[in-house]
């Protein structure tokens, strides 16, 4: 038996391992990887398999409970698998099955892994700051050597003996399982066993405790049902910065080392210079020569046979970036990490849903990429519409590959999506897989899966998504459900949330060729119910509920404005009037209703001023006054600057206050005015100082009166009538010449 202690992603290890296997071919390889992944191994040599890929093990009942085992082309395990499968030598995965690992309560790991970085002990002695750098310098970047693995084994054995740290119970179980498989393999009669495992575990496989100790550790382990599959992976997810425990600092550097370019270091520096040149920075050939020389001379100064990653970065900083470290950050993505995204051949078994999604991707020419990419879709085109539909369906099954951006500018036929493929999305797909074998069926199942406890808001959101994803059957089901919900709902406040998305759908529905008639009917029913229920719903609320209601009313008003249905509008204003005048209405919605009525000229300014003074008078509880004002003025900072009528009203009221009343009311007024931004407040102050507020100015015409006089009506009339036509105003309102 030979033990090859490796680090999971290290080109030096991979190279030495390959050489060692060539030199002394084993008849079986044991690999540190959960037993379930063994079935995946033969796929590695298939045509079209391109690392980085990951072996994904997940619980069948709860696919979110998953573990990844990433493999890059410079991973020793990957090289061992390739070497063995191409020669027909069996590979056995001999780590503790994930079935047990998943079943174990994570809290059972009593001893946290204190020894996060055991090699830091060697590093410190050797004058390095951390174990990763030390291992990189001493192990990965050295030339091949025959005694490589023996040396690692000896070092780790000593380290484990010296530290005698308490391993976590999970590590102990894993090692016991590895020993068990090792013993079984020996019993089967294999003569030359090669064990490829993390260097840390190597000593535990040599000094074996009695069988019964291992059996005791492994007795009666709980078990769950798991499944394993391949998933494409990215270099980015191999970095330690991504939170991957066995991650490395610069996968791009390792990949480069593995590629065995003819002049590896010069090629590396040239690549860096090209990246910098693309960013319009210095990176001429002469600089490459100088940077390479400097790196070599630095390596010499530090007593190293050839420059490593640190030397290369320091040379780049000194020569390319004029000493400025911030420019090095430009190299991180394209060079140090790399944009590689793995690929799986079509023949590799995968879940039907996954295959369907990949087929869609191919058909729509939307290739997953680890780069962030923004695409813009013109929904008047068939292909763009299909892409939008596909991305929306993915959203429906909870795979957020694309994120919808808000589009500036006119028109509702444009969508902008930011696409960013992350390997974890595969887990989401697997999670969704039980819902259906094609994307359409799964999305439909997801959307129509509504429980009685769902809110109306949630149902409307789903309806919106169903229409955008063009799932008419789901939409029909959802509409019926929505109708039921709305009829049964006692909660007017809840109904309010349903209207804005519905209004949006009816407005834009025709772009997507959706049938909106049924929807409009439902909308009418819902608004009617709201208008009836609103006065009741707004009374007897505590401050929190009143604030929520007011916010919902705000978006409801906006939605109603966009619908331009005059019946609804009239009903709404009536409801608001009840709100404003009913003394039982909670103060914040009451203030809001008063304001709405004023803005729509239902209340005259005198009436409004009266209600305002009433609400602000000292007979009210202070909290009530404050919330009323909040409802009345919230978010109107900019409006106050321009609507001088409103400002004048408040100003006039302020004049009437006695000193005593002023002092009690000041903090309450501050509470609302404090929410305005400071430029808004500054401008309001400016208006108060300069404008003549005493003079009543109507909000409809802010023009200075002399300008109004100079208008030549006869000449203006043709223009006005065209404008009126454009705005579809009734011509009867135009002045007669």
């Amino acid at each position: 038996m030979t033990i090859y202690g490796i680090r999971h992603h290290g080109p030096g290890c991979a190279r030495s391992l390959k050489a060692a296997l060539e030199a002394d071919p084993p008849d079986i390889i044991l690999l540190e990887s959960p037993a379930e992944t063994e079935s995946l191994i033969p796929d590695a040599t298939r045509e079209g398999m391109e690392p980085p890929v990951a072996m994904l093990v997940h619980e069948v009942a709860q696919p979110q409970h998953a573990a990844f085992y990433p493999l890059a082309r410079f991973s020793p395990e990957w090289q061992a698998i390739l070497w063995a499968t191409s020669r027909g030598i069996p590979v056995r995965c001999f780590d503790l099955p994930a079935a047990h690992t998943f079943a174990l309560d994570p809290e059972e790991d009593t001893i946290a892994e204190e020894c996060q970085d055991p090699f830091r002990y060697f590093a410190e002695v050797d004058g390095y700051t951390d174990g990763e750098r030390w291992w990189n310098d001493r192990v990965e970047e050295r030339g091949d050597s025959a005694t490589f693995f023996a040396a690692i084994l000896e070092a780790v054995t000593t380290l484990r003996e010296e530290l005698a740290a308490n391993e976590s119970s999970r590590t102990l179980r894993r090692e016991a399982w590895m020993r068990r498989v090792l013993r079984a393999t020996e019993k089967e009669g294999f003569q030359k066993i090669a064990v490829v495992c993390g260097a840390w575990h190597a000593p535990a496989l040599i000094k074996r405790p009695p069988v019964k100790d291992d059996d005791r550790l492994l007795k009666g382990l709980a078990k769950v049902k798991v499944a394993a599959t391949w998933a494409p992976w990215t270099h980015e997810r191999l970095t330690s910065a991504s939170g991957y425990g066995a991650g490395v600092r610069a996968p791009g550097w390792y990949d480069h080392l593995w590629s065995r370019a003819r002049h590896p270091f010069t090629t590396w520096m040239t690549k860096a210079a090209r990246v910098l040149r693309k960013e319009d920075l210095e990176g001429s050939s002469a600089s490459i020569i100088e940077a390479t020389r400097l790196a070599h001379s630095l390596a010499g100064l530090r007593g190293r046979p050839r420059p490593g990653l640190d030397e290369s970065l320091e040379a780049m900083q000194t020569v390319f970036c004029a000493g400025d470290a911030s420019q090095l950050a430009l190299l991180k993505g394209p060079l140090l990490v790399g944009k590689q995204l793995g690929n799986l051949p079509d023949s590799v078994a995968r879940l039907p849903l996954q295959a369907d999604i990949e087929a869609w991707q191919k058909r729509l020419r939307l290739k997953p990429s680890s780069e962030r990419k923004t695409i813009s879709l013109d929904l008047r085109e068939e292909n763009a519409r299909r892409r939008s539909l596909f991305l929306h369906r993915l959203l429906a099954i909870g795979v957020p590959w694309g994120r919808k951006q808000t589009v500036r500018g006119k028109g509702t036929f444009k969508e902008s999506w930011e696409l960013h493929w992350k390997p974890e999305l595969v887990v989401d797909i697997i999670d969704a897989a039980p819902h259906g074998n094609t994307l359409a069926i799964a999305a439909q199942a997801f959307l129509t899966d509504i429980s009685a406890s769902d809110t109306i808001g949630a149902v409307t959101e789903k309806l919106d998504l169903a229409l955008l994803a063009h799932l008419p059957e789901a939409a029909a089901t959802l509409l019926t459900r929505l109708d039921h919900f709305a009829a049964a709902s006692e909660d007017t406040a809840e109904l309010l949330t349903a209207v804005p998305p519905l209004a949006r759908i009816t407005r834009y529905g025709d772009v997507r060729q959706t049938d909106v008639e049924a929807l409009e009917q439902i909308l009418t029913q819902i608004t009617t119910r709201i208008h009836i229920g609103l006065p009741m719903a707004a009374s007897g609320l505590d401050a929190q509920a009143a604030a929520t209601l007011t916010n919902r009313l705000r978006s409801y008003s906006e939605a109603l404005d966009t619908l331009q249905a005059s019946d609804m509008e009239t009903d709404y204003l009536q409801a608001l009037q009840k709100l404003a005048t009913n003394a039982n209405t909670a103060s914040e919605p009451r203030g809001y209703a008063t304001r709405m009525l004023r803005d729509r000229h239902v209340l005259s300014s005198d009436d409004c001023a009266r209600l305002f003074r009433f609400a602000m008078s000292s007979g009210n509880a202070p909290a009530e006054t404050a919330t009323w004002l909040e409802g009345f003025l919230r978010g109107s900072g900019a409006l106050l600057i321009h609507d001088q009528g409103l400002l004048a009203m408040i100003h006039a009221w302020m004049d009437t206050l006695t000193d005593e009343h002023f002092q009690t009311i000041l903090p309450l007024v501050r509470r609302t005015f404090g929410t305005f931004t400071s430029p808004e407040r500054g401008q309001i102050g400016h208006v108060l100082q300069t404008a003549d507020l005493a003079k009543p100015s109507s909000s409809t015409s802010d023009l200075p009166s002399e300008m109004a006089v100079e208008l030549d009506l006869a000449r203006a009339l043709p223009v006005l009538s065209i404008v009126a036509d454009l705005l579809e105003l009734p011509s009867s309102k135009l002045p007669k010449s």
Partner: protein
Amino acid sequence: MSILREHAENLYADELAALAKHDDRPRPTQWKLSPWAVTDYLLGTTLDDGSEITPKYIGDRRLMEIAVATLATDRALLLLGVPGTAKSWVSEHLAAAISGDSTLLIQGTAGTAEEALRYNWNYAQLLAKGPSKEALVPSPMFHAMEDGKLCRVEELTRIPSEVQDTLITLLSEKTLPIPELSDEIQATAGFNTIATANSRDRGVNDLSSALQRRFNTVVLPLPKSLESEVTIVQSRVASMAQALALPAEPPALEEIRRVVTVFRELRSGATEDGTAKVKSPTATLSTAEAISVITNGLSLAGHFGSGAVNAHDLASGMVGAIVKDPSQDPTVFREYLETVVKERDGWADLYRACRDQL
């Protein structure tokens, strides 16, 4: 009569000799020490025979390695940094350790002419005998090229751009043409240039990109931690007190720590514990200035005071270093005194002393 300030190669002659004795590594042509020994000379170490090499530069080892490696590759070195980050100091010691001679120095000013970088003429000779080698007055650069030594150019970015570009031929062709004599000087091995530039001067006479390309640039940072800055000030004050024969006792570490803390806090705009924001004055407040504040305090205490440095001796130097712009800086410093210094335990004497000076 004693010399006010010795050259580095004389002041540290013992250390250089000790290093040379133990240095068995290969030396580039004309180098007095191997690159390893130069790095050790700068950063300090203890040799096998027990002789102590004092650290000249306290900071990142990697920076010094890059600087030495650059000179070993015959590329010119540009040391860049804000004032007081030991640029000239490092360049002097590099020249002393590598060439054994730190005197080949060209001080860059707005009035530096091409002749200062190339050569000048002895006009009497020139008129009497016409152009000849004898009539030529060589510049330090000329000498360095002939002898294979390091030439230092201080404050490179103060030199007008058209004069700076004279360096391009020198640095890339390593020759200095003398068209008047149809002759040239070819640099011998060991020649190189160390330039220093102040990053606060950026935009005054920026290096042309052709010249920039011929330098490897090392940026010397301000000391990272309070501890390392206190160490720097402490060791420099001790050696300066010795050289200047100041009568007072060098101040206690605690006194130095206070000055350094004040400088660091005002410089970075936040207190050391990061809890309070502080306004920054216009002054640079470098480590070098902290050193001069303390030596100034030493001399005050020795000649006019009790002989031991107290807050009053330091305060006048501090106020002088911090208040550079009479319109804004006093307010900034007073605000700092009132909000930070006043509240600190045991800083009452410093608070009072500074208030009196303002």
